[in-house]
């Protein structure tokens, strides 16, 4: 079962799915075919938003799609991230799943709203046999507790949204966000070691979000 799942989440498949959903969604909105009752189930599974992010620990550049719940107060986004070879020793492909809450909202004016402090968690998987999730067979059981293919962390985020009031606009809102990210492995290292500089465990991510 697990191997089927592993096969499904190959780099290429994830890219194809992500791209086709985005094209499909945009096409659907443009043609208003979501009015057709037969296609309401498709409408229901449309992502509510798309994101493109720079850095933030999940890729040099990452593209994501996701859903909003409770009037945009809870956000779930699935990202595909890429680090080109010229930046590291090898190129890196990864996926991450993120959940964030937006407890505070400030209406700046009738078009601008500001979320000063969103709080989120993420899980991150890098593709490649060396980034395994389950310990390979050549190790005894529990040899390493650590799974290089399953990392995660926390982030704090600020977000500024601009609402398009025109009813026929393709996007309903566009937002800019910045986030401060730390990872579980960095945080636990810092907690047990005063010698690690606090700024070493944090990094920054910047992104744009489009709401349909």
């Amino acid at each position, binding site marked *: 079962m697990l191997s089927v799942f592993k096969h499904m989440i190959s780099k290429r498949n994830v890219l194809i799915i992500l791209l086709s959903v985005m094209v499909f969604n945009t096409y659907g909105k443009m043609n208003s075919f979501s009015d057709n009752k037969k296609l309401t189930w498709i409408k229901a599974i449309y992502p509510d938003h798309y994101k493109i992010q720079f850095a933030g620990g999940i*890729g040099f550049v990452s593209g994501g799609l996701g859903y909003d719940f409770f009037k945009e107060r809870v956000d779930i986004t699935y990202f595909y991230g890429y680090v080109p070879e010229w930046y*590291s020793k090898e190129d*890196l492909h990864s996926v991450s799943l993120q959940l964030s809450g937006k407890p505070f909202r400030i209406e700046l004016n009738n078009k601008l709203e500001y979320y000063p402090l969103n709080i989120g968690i993420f899980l991150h998987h890098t593709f490649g046999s060396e*980034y395994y999730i389950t310990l390979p067979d*050549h190790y005894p059981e529990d040899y*390493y507790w*650590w799974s290089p293919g399953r990392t995660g962390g926390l982030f704090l985020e600020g977000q500024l949204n601009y609402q398009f009031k025109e009813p026929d606009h393709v996007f309903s809102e566009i937002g800019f966000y910045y986030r401060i990210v730390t990872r579980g492995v960095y945080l636990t290292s810092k907690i047990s070691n005063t*010698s690690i500089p606090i700024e070493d465990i944090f990094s*920054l991510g910047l992104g744009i979000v489009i709401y349909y």
Partner: protein
Amino acid sequence: MKRYMIAMLFIFGIFISSCDEIFEYSPYVIDFEDDEQNLTQKNISKLLSTKAPDTLVIALTGDSHRFYDEAEKLVNTLNQNFEIDFLIHTGDFADYGIPKQYQWSNSIFSKLHAPYFVVIGNHDLVSNGEDGYNEMFGNPNFSFIYHSIKFIFINTNSREYEFNGRVPDLNWLQNEINPGDEFEKVILVFHAPPFDADFDSDLEGDFMNILHSSDNVLFATHGHLHSFNFSEPYSDGIPFLNTASAEKNEFVLVKIYNNEFTFNVVSF
């Protein structure tokens, strides 16, 4: 509302200016600074630029994993209270082979006044850790001659290579250990000892045969087992010295004079 924005920009600015590397693209990106690269060769050059003393003094440590505070204490103790010629780290320098763990450990050991040499451990090889080691230190198998002694560092973490029969590299070891004119004795450094389950059992006999036939090994030092131990596991005249992990707040101080060695365990 403008005040909010200005305050946010201000905080943002402080954050950006307070961090060396504010953007992380992946925990597995290897992007080391110049002073975090090619360290084995740099430390060999540093060591060989000094004249060998009559009595050689070496500090042995290892298995520092995520015990950064203890490692820092060790380095401070050595800098303040001991005159050593160099330090040997017997591996597990980066707890899970993560670039940041290499950088954190190195930021501590690079403060040591004396040169330091790190043999690769199994933990250093997790994920893309071998690339990290290559980038920071160089080839995992290396050697140098100082004080008429050849120090041979060899990768013995067979399990990380699925016991493929090529780790440890016995041909390389044979070439390195063959008696030569420039050295009288050999000190062998590795992480997992040959009697350990992580060492390829098919290579254990040949590995020991190489040490026996060269008949020049003063002692072997290793890590992996975390506790200090001194024994002759093969009852063949080759002593094995297991370094204490930094977590034990201990290190081993070895003195070599006239091809003979003494040691003591130092608490810090």
